[in-house]
């Protein structure tokens, strides 16, 4: 952290990492301010991660606590793994936004408040008796009151816009101010406004004026003695794009479909937070993607499975309550051994739970939530950009091993975003699809000797007419069979087929110290917090290693051996210990669970503290 003079005359300090949260009423345009700040920050070359925090209600009454909408960005000159533990800076457009977010702030954090939003009735709506900006209750923070509404109106006077319209521009004022404080250029946003509001040049101009006014205010005002610089990060060379997990997941599915040379049929029923994937794919009709909004989640997976039977890549996407409904069809998919990708964007449960909050507690359901012995592949994505690769891998494995694959993502990585280094199309792994065409010696349940996969023989192929179904099938011929020994053989074959997938996936690779005695084991969306915590612990001289599992069924072949190398295994999860039970069950050795079930991800700090106790 260095410091020099800014152009504005203010002190210019260099920081290596900053967490900012924009917060206001749903109507205040905070998501927009946040995404613009993100885009510009990416162009400046920082590593970053973001997370939007929408209200649970569609349109809660303006100014109330449930109506608060937030957007957090963590940006840095170093590697970044999460949207950040606790904000350094809160931009609060009204008292409700202050109240909701206050407890998350870092001690001593800066609060930039739009004082014009703190009128008496605003305070009342948020349940404040007195004005927190004035009553001394924020003593532990650095409060900077800014008359954003008034200043925006002044700046926009010349436009002659009605006041209500002008007031809507104040998010750009706030954005401009932050650009100034963190030394970011305005140009990308000015250009974006122009394009976005091309059909409405008046509004475009007003937003640009507000942005510039905010920036100018930041430069000129004595309220900001320090300005900051966060230098570019050393990211791997390549072309980057900022992406949310749900978008990355959709693109991963499309990329795999294209590589497989086929058609994807997505059966889906809207549900928060998975609907975005449906929306995204519905746009891509010219990419061999058929989207089907079914009458319910059962119809959705049924159609996906029917499509797989007919030779498409069947996909369905949902979240907890919808996943619950897919149980019976997933069980059928295991029996008929067809490729199928079932995506579960996990949210806080059980039952309806907290639909707009995150959790990673559907692991049990994915692994065990079917009648009888019913094995399938289970994968989990670890970060927004990783959703691309994991989705791609899900399709590859489903097709190669003729099996349903459950892909677990979660709300935090699905809605969160980070820079994604774009792969080169030609570097994507091949996904060879071979439909059986030769009637000679065709048996629907004959198996590939290596993978144990059965042939994919699709309707329309002469001579391969055959029947599949949920009744037990005779090995090879696939006729209905009640033979006791056949049932045992088939049950074991289904299990062995999934076990053998371990030969087709990379071994687990611990990151960190070879001689560590503590391993932190994780899966899914805890990746960022664990990776960050492990780096910080090592920076503090602790010896610790990290394994993060993408493959949960089957586990990587070397997992047992890796576990054996460590005295202690710490297993942080956003549930009450689901992987912990499975690892103990599988390897009959104890692990140390660390659980958080609050509808939000771990903070690095929470994991770090436990590591420091154990390593």
């Amino acid at each position, binding site marked *: 952290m260095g410091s020099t003079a800014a152009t504005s005359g203010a002190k210019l300090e260099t920081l290596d990492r900053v967490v900012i949260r924009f917060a206001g009423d749903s109507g205040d345009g905070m998501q927009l301010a946040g995404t613009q700040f993100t*885009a510009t920050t*990416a*162009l400046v*070359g920082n590593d970053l991660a973001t997370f939007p925090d929408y209200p649970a209600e569609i349109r809660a009454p303006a100014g109330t606590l449930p109506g608060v909408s937030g957007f957090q960005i963590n940006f840095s000159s170093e590697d970044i793994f999460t949207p950040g533990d606790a904000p350094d800076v809160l931009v609060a457009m009204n008292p409700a936004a202050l109240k909701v977010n206050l407890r998350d702030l870092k001690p001593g954090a800066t609060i930039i408040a739009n004082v014009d939003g703190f009128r008496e009735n605003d305070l009342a709506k948020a349940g404040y008796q007195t004005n927190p900006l004035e009553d001394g209750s924020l003593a532990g923070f650095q409060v900077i009151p800014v008359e954003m509404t008034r200043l925006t109106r002044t700046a926009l006077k010349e436009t002659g816009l009605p006041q209500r319209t002008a007031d809507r521009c104040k998010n750009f004022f706030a954005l401009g101010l932050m650009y100034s404080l963190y030394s970011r250029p305005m140009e*990308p946003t000015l250009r974006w406004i122009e394009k976005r509001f091309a059909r409405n040049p008046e509004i475009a101009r007003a937003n640009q004026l507000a942005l510039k006014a905010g920036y100018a205010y930041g430069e000129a005002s004595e309220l900001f003695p320090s300005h900051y610089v966060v230098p570019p990060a050393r990211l791997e*060379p*390549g*072309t*980057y*794009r*900022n992406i949310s997990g749900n978008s990355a997941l959709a*693109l991963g599915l*499309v*990329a795999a479909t*294209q590589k497989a040379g086929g*058609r994807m*049929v997505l*059966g889906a029923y809207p549900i928060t937070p998975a609907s975005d994937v449906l929306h995204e794919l519905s746009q*891509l*009709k*010219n*990419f061999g993607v*058929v989207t*089907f909004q*079914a*009458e*319910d989640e*059962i*119809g*959705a997976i*049924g*159609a996906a*499975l*029917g*499509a*797989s*039977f*007919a*030779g*498409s890549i069947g996909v369905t996407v949902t979240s907890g309550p919808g996943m619950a409904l897919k149980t*019976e*069809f997933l069980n*059928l998919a295991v029996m*008929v051994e067809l490729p199928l990708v079932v995506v579960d964007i996990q949210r806080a449960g059980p039952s309806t739970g907290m639909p707009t909050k995150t959790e990673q507690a559907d692991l049990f359901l994915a692994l065990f939530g079917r009648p009888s012995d019913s094995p399938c592949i289970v994968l989990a994505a670890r970060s927004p950009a990783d959703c691309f690769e994991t989705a791609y891998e899900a399709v590859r494995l489903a097709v190669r091993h003729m099996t349903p694959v459950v892909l677990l993502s979660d709300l935090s990585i699905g809605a969160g975003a980070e820079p994604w280094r*774009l*792969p080169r*199309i030609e570097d994507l792994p091949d996904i060879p699809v071979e439909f059986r065409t030769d009637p000679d010696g065709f048996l629907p349940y004959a198996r590939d000797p290596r993978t144990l996969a059965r042939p994919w023989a699709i*309707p*329309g*192929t*002469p*001579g*391969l*007419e*055959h*029947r*599949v*179904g949920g*009744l037990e099938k005779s090995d090879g011929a696939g006729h*209905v069979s009640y033979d006791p020994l056949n049932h045992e053989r088939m049950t074991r074959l289904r299990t062995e087929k999934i076990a053998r997938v371990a030969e087709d996936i990379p071994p687990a690779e611990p990151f960190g110290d070879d001689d560590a005695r503590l391993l932190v084991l994780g899966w899914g969306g805890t990746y960022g917090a664990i990776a960050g915590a492990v780096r910080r612990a090592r920076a503090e001289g602790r010896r610790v290693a990290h394994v993060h599992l993408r493959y949960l069924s089957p586990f990587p072949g070397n997992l047992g051996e890796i576990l054996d190398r460590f005295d202690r295994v710490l297993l942080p999860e956003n549930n009450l210990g689901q992987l912990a039970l499975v690892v103990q069950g599988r390897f009959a050795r104890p692990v140390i669970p660390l659980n958080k079930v609050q509808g939000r991800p771990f903070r690095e700090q929470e994991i770090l503290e436990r590591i420091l106790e154990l390593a």
Partner: protein
Amino acid sequence: MTTQAALELTRKDFVTDQEVRWCPGCGDYAVLAAVQQVFPELGIPRENFVVVSGIGCSSRFPYYVNTYGFHTIHGRAPAVATGVKLANPELSVWIATGDGDALSIGGNHLIHLMRRNVDVKILLFNNRIYGLTKGQYSPTSELGKKTKSSPYGSVDRPFNPIGLALGAGATFVARTVDVFAPHIKEVLRQAAEHRGTAYVEVLQNCNIYNDGAWEPYREKELRDDNLVLLRNGEPLVFGRERRRGIRLGSPYAPEVVELGEGRSEAGLLVHDEAGPLAYAMTLAEMQGPDLPLPVGVFRKVSEPVFDRDVHGQIAEVTALKGRGDLAKLLYSGDLWEIS
């Protein structure tokens, strides 16, 4: 799609090597025979047929038809059939289902299939009982019926399966009888020709758990007096000697009139497959003892076909935007380079 091979198909081509496992005397046999006779006549290559079913005696159907087949789970055949059509609209997709499978557990998928008008043909084997689970009442069982699960008589009002389909917006609705071979074949042919969902209720006898449920409509001697055959454009006439007709007494109130001896067919209801929904509902409501039960095609109208439109839209969008370019898709939005 009509190829030389398709035209040379015979009944035998549609028989599998699996032993048929229905009870001797079950009405399902007759339906199977009819299907195996009609399929080869349709000019569709054998490999392009897919028979999808749920669970039940009747849902064993796919195992006995030598085409592609999918014996899915209870009530869900419409979902799977929709997926098959979305993956490959060229296929001729048929559903075999029972009154329990289709109307009890599967009711939702069924009405949505008909609403969307997916190009799928449904054979609903209505025996007014759960056969495979050994005899519980079904949603078509009559009030008061005593079964294993209703030892004191059922208090569940039944569905009218034709009425339900009409209410759901079905574009082709028909009824036929298992043992009435020429009729069932004729209805199947029409169902096959229809573009969109074709719903065919087959009155089927379960001689083990509900024997005689359809006696007045199945027995040769009774049938003619108890059934009225719907023929498009023809007046509603029935009876062994075709001496009885149906007319509207007052609006919405059909009644029987005696014909012959000077009384002509003028004034009788003339069947119109494409008539108003309410007219079809009048037919759906007709039943004994006062009125004959209609069989044949109640309704046949042309409406947008879901799978065709899904693929039509894809074609349109593709024509407009060009075939998707993966690289362009990934490399879009705000990009930046790190070097």
